[in-house]
């Protein structure tokens, strides 16, 4: 029984970590009024860069930093296109996804002699046990003895909440996403705030990608991210564009996946085909949304072009 709970919890953590990070990234961008469909691409570039740099430097931390830089650079393209050049935000996000998918696989082929994936990342993140807390039953072995990236993800939930709701910076950022013209009148630079927010989203999503290639897994290939960026967008909306909402949504999804997978080990496949069991997380998410969560209100100015002085 204890081991079952441990498995469930561990799988939940495994699955939610990248989702939390990418969705938090999306949160900053969208709260400032910039849609970020490009989370998938930002995760991809982060996963690729951190894997390659970890392999070459032997340090996952340097890899992670490099991944963040790469994520910021790619997000910069999104920011320049949408904020400075007023490109349609969804179009730009889609382009970011295409760009990352093409570029990373192309570079893997170029760097590793035509290979479809990077070599194994030997120096990956290993579990950190937190003293004292690690001795708590179930929780100690899972939540308090896990990858540093998971701790980063959890800490970032609190930090994001604090920054967005308790600092002037956060207030300005949200104001820009709700009423950009009013904010501008009040002396807030819409352009500057949106640039910062989009770059933050690139950094966070890249850490999510790094989790996939240097913590949960240990290589990068074309299928490393495989749609998680889109699930992260779903988690962001499910979580109603709020940090703790995102945490809850990602954990809910991770737990549903854990149930469907652990269910197989319990032998549920005798009664339900595994294809049907695999649908479980997706069905549960829809049911939860339809039954309990309901209406979601996006930031008011999201997706709208903003031109200084025009109304």
């Amino acid at each position, binding site marked *: 029984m204890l081991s079952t709970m441990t498995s469930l919890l561990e799988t939940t953590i495994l699955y939610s970590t990248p989702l939390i990070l990418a969705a938090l990234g999306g949160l900053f961008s969208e709260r400032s009024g910039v849609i970020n469909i490009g989370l998938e691409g930002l995760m991809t570039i982060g996963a690729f860069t951190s894997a390659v740099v970890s392999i070459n430097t032997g340090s996952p931390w340097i890899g992670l930093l490099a991944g963040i830089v790469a994520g910021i650079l790619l997000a910069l*393209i999104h920011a*320049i*296109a949408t904020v400075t*050049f*007023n*490109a*349609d935000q*969804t*179009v*730009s996000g*889609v*382009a*970011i*996804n*295409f*760009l990352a*998918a*093409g*570029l990373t*696989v*192309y570079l893997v*082929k*170029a760097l590793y002699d035509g290979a479809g994936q990077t070599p194994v990342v030997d120096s990956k993140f290993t579990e950190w046990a937190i003293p004292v807390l690690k001795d708590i039953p179930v929780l100690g072995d899972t939540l308090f003895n896990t990858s540093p990236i998971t701790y980063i993800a959890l800490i970032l939930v609190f930090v994001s909440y604090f920054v967005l709701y308790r600092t002037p910076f956060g207030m300005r950022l949200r104001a820009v996403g709700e009423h950009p013209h009013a904010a501008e009148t009040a002396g807030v630079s819409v352009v500057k705030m949106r640039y910062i927010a989009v770059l933050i989203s690139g950094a966070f999503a890249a850490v999510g990608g790094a989790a996939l290639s240097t913590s949960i897994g240990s290589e990068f290939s074309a*299928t490393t991210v*495989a*749609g998680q960026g*889109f*699930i992260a*967008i*779903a988690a962001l*909306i*499910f979580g109603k564009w709020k940090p703790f909402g995102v945490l809850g949504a990602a954990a809910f999804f991770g737990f549903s996946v854990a149930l469907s997978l652990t269910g197989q080990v319990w032998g549920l496949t005798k009664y339900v*085909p595994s*294809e*049907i069991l*695999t*649908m479980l997380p*997706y*069905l549960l*998410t*829809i049911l939860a*949304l*339809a039954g309990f*969560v*309901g*209406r*979601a209100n*996006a930031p008011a100015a999201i997706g709208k072009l903003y031109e200084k002085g025009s109304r």
Partner: protein
Amino acid sequence: MIGKLNRNSTLISSLISIVLGMLVGAIAMLLSGYDPIAAYGALFGSIFGSASDMGETLRTITPLIFAGLSVALAFRTGLFNIGVEGQLVIGGLAAAFVGLKLDLPPVLHAIVALVVGTLAGAIWALIPGLLKAIRGVHEVIVCIMMNWIALFLSNYMVGKVLSNNSDSTEKIHPSASIRVDFLTDLFDGARVHLGLILAILAAIFVYVLLFKTKLGYELRAVGLNPSASEYAGMSVKRNIIISMMISGGIAGLAGAVELLGTNEYLSINASLPGTGFDGIAVALLGANTPMGVVLSSMLFGGLFNGGNNMQYVAGVPFEVIRIVFATIILFVAANIVKQVGNRKSRKKKGENAGA
């Protein structure tokens, strides 16, 4: 006069966007030691190079037109149908079911399969539509979830219902196929099928619907300003549901057409086909207009099919095409050339005024 000037500069700026996109691709190739001239020669040579290459290009374009129209139509009503992917899978599944399990005379069989595929796609899209209209649930999440459910449902049906526990179904009955000899012969054996004609018809349908009917007017009004439309007596909920169903129907038809024309069988798949996501790019690049969708599908399909040939002839990895395409989308979307020009002239003006 000014209009003409503007149009010219738009043309030039788009041309520059493409050249820039290809330049980025060329730089990527040069940096890793490939010959960009040979690569691009192979790419363009194959788009219309021979009858069969041209045929395969048209075959690639067909589902993109449908997917693009589907996304575009929903966009016009203010909905982001990111679920085209799943609606397409379900349309294909339904068409496969009709094509394999029913015995009908030719023509009628194909028509029934197409209609059932369309309906299946519409019903699949009805779920996010209903949830959005009734419960206010964001269609993007429901669509993303429905995509995966469609994939697993299709895999289950292939193995357990449509075949005797196999990886793929038999070929559909010939009576349900929409391949026709004259098209196949015209394009030297390429798999061009009636779907291409249906795609053009669908584009005309969407154009007429959106711009020539009262329903289309309402759909667009709801997309532009839901509260004003509500005030003017339109039902926003009703229009959301209708828009999602038509959008899903077009996506379902795309799946049916691919199944009945291109593949003629269904197999289990480890991942989603990706056509729906390509459709998003196609629709947005085509400014959500039917004509724009057709044109951007041509560009997209041509590049993608040409990319395969580029890999074949010049040995350049296909991924270069994705880089080139992404760059073109970005440059065109940002209208970067024109804006840089504007900025410069504005700056100049400012300096002059200052002096």
